[in-house]
């Protein structure tokens, strides 16, 4: 009970504070743009326009959003159990094996709607497998999960490099990728969904795995707040001693949580492999696993927060591409900066502005101040 944080009303806690953190992240990004000698306002214009200006752009934005929902959920599920799974990147990468195997095996013989479920299972299975090992090492041997999952990212990169080289690469090909899948390995685009709003998806790879991502988000909400497993995960996350007292099997919950987390990360692979490239390429994850950390932090580990946070990053990725096209001196690496700043301000520095905001909010409305006082007493 050091200096207690006075209780803020929900809108400030879940709305104002994240927004202020985000605004600061963008402000500093704007400074970088200024240093580079461009106009931040112009960049912002291109960003918004590039992300939402046309149906096709929106399609791309939502395509990235899909990816980030999966990886954001993966990080969030682990957070609820008090685990920091920093290995979403590697789990998504390994998850690709499951997708590739399903597609390479059945794309000639089965229609997409039969290959898709197999690929989902494959992606989740391989992603879960890659998270299972660090989870098991923590549960049984007490190995620090942050370190092991980082290590597993690198091991995954080496392993996939090897597999693409020696196993998946067709004979005679030079580039590190599988062959291109037939119709059975290609997910349909969601042009019907876009056309409801009078938009055309164009060349954007906005595909059905978006719906799967929304389903997964709902599934995670049910899991965390409406199932016994979720209850046990949250108990562990808040208080391991209470979990032991309640007879919750710590080791089991850690392993299962990590597998769910890894499975969600693995399912991210469906989107680029079956939805865009129709083949598995070297390094197809492209940092999406790490974006998941930013998304989970922004979204406060709640699916209802993760979806808008993923949309925000989808916007950054698509809009960022547009900026780099219009303003050559600002490459897509700008997004990486923003992503880092969001992680910094929404994560590590999340309490920096809290005292000021608390003073402001509670100072402005005496009614809330009274409520806070009585609650605290």
């Amino acid at each position, binding site marked *: *009970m*050091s200096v207690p944080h006075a209780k803020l009303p929900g809108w400030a806690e879940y709305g104002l504070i994240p927004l202020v953190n985000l605004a600061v992240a963008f402000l500093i990004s704007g400074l*970088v743009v200024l*240093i*580079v*000698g461009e106009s931040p306002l112009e960049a912002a214009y291109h960003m918004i326009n590039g992300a939402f200006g046309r149906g096709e752009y929106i399609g791309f934005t939502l395509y990235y959003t899909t990816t980030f929902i999966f990886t954001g959920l993966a990080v969030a599920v682990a957070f609820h159990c008090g685990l*920091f799974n*920093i290995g979403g990147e590697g789990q998504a990468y390994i998850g690709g094996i499951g997708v590739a195997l399903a597609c390479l095996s059945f794309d000639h013989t089965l229609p997409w709607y039969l290959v898709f479920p197999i690929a989902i299972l494959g992606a989740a299975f391989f992603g879960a497998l890659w998270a299972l090992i660090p989870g098991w*090492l923590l549960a049984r*041997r*007490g*190995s*620090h999960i*942050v*370190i*092991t999952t*980082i*290590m*597993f990212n*690198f*091991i995954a*990169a*080496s*392993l996939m*490099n*090897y597999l693409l*080289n*020696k196993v998946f690469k067709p004979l005679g090909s030079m580039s590190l990728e599988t062959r291109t899948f037939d119709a059975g390995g290609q997910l349909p685009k969601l042009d019907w969904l876009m056309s409801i709003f009078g938009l055309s998806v164009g060349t954007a790879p906005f595909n059905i795995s978006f719906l799967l991502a929304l389903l997964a988000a709902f599934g995670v909400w049910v899991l965390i707040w409406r199932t016994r497993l979720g209850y046990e995960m949250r108990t562990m996350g808040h208080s391991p001693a209470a979990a032991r007292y309640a007879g919750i099997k710590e080791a089991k919950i850690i392993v299962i949580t990590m597998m769910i987390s890894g499975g969600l990360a693995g399912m991210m692979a469906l989107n680029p492999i079956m939805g865009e490239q129709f083949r598995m390429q070297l390094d197809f994850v492209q940092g999406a696993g*790490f974006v998941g*950390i930013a998304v989970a*932090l922004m979204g406060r580990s709640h699916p209802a927060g993760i979806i808008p946070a993923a949309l925000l990053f989808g916007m950054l990725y698509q809009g960022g591409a547009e900026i780099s096209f219009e303003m050559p*001196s*600002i*490459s897509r*690496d*700008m*997004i*990486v*900066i*923003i*992503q*880092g*700043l969001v*992680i*910094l301000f929404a*994560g*590590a*520095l*999340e*309490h*920096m502005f809290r005292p000021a905001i608390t003073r402001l909010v509670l100072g402005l409305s005496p009614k809330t101040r009274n409520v806070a006082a009585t609650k605290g007493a």
Partner: protein
Amino acid sequence: MDFFQVFIELAQSTVRLSTPLILAALAGLFTERAGVFDIGLEGKMLGAAFAAGCVAYISQSVMMGLFAAVLVSVLLSLVHGYASITQRGSQIVSGVAINFVVAGSTVILGEAWFRQGGRTPALTEDGRFGRITLPFADAVREVPILGPLYSGLLSGHSPLTYLAFLMVPASWWILYRTRFGLRLRAVGENPGAVDTAGISVIWLRYRAVICCGILCGIAGAYLSLAANAGFTKGMTAGKGYIALAALIFAKWRPKNILFACLLFGFLDAFAIRYQGYAFPLIGRVPVQFMQALPYILTVILLAGFIGKAIPPKAGGVPYVKER
């Protein structure tokens, strides 16, 4: 090629490749022994390498480059310190954030300033660290065994390499033989003991973090001013994480850090040299396996199959006065 010659060459490149690892791992040692975990070694190194590349090119002075590297790295350390010591935020999250911010901004700024695809312009001799030839290195080259060892392995490295190897005993001395070291190790184990002894936990941890910044800065400068002639995009290529692995592998001890970094450096040198080479009995070792080996070894260590790596007790936990 004769075996001894191969050995000398392999050993020499091991030393070269270990240098940044040693510096970065020692950097991590200072902050983690003080209870501040740092997975941002990678970002600090990268930022430092970039700063060194830029400033050395513009000033045509290698020392200015080194100074800039250290400055940038220390500033990044202070950001990490502010987030994790003053604001008591998550140390892991802060480290991740710094890695991203640096990865992005080095490319953006580099491209904006030099327009060479994220590189800094190639440095001339004045902007780089030369190699130091030890006295009589040429004279004794022909002496069997000892000659090549002296002139091939010990001589002919960049001054930063000698500095890195000197920093190992120096770090040990600082940590175990000075007042600062005693307090630093104490604050990583029980900050309460330090606080009640009338020492400021916050200032002590900030100093540890600054030490980390200085060493990371030198490590970064080594990459762009000694190992290469300028900065290239993403040039740390995971070395910060390997250094982190080495630090854990070394169980947070200076002497072990030397051996862990030499081992990981050797694996790297070996992988480069024997890429695609078929060994008798085992056949061809995939280069990817060699690359992954440091990480695999660290995981095995963390699993407690070879000894136990016990981190500093107060590591990763922001200090809050009890009540």
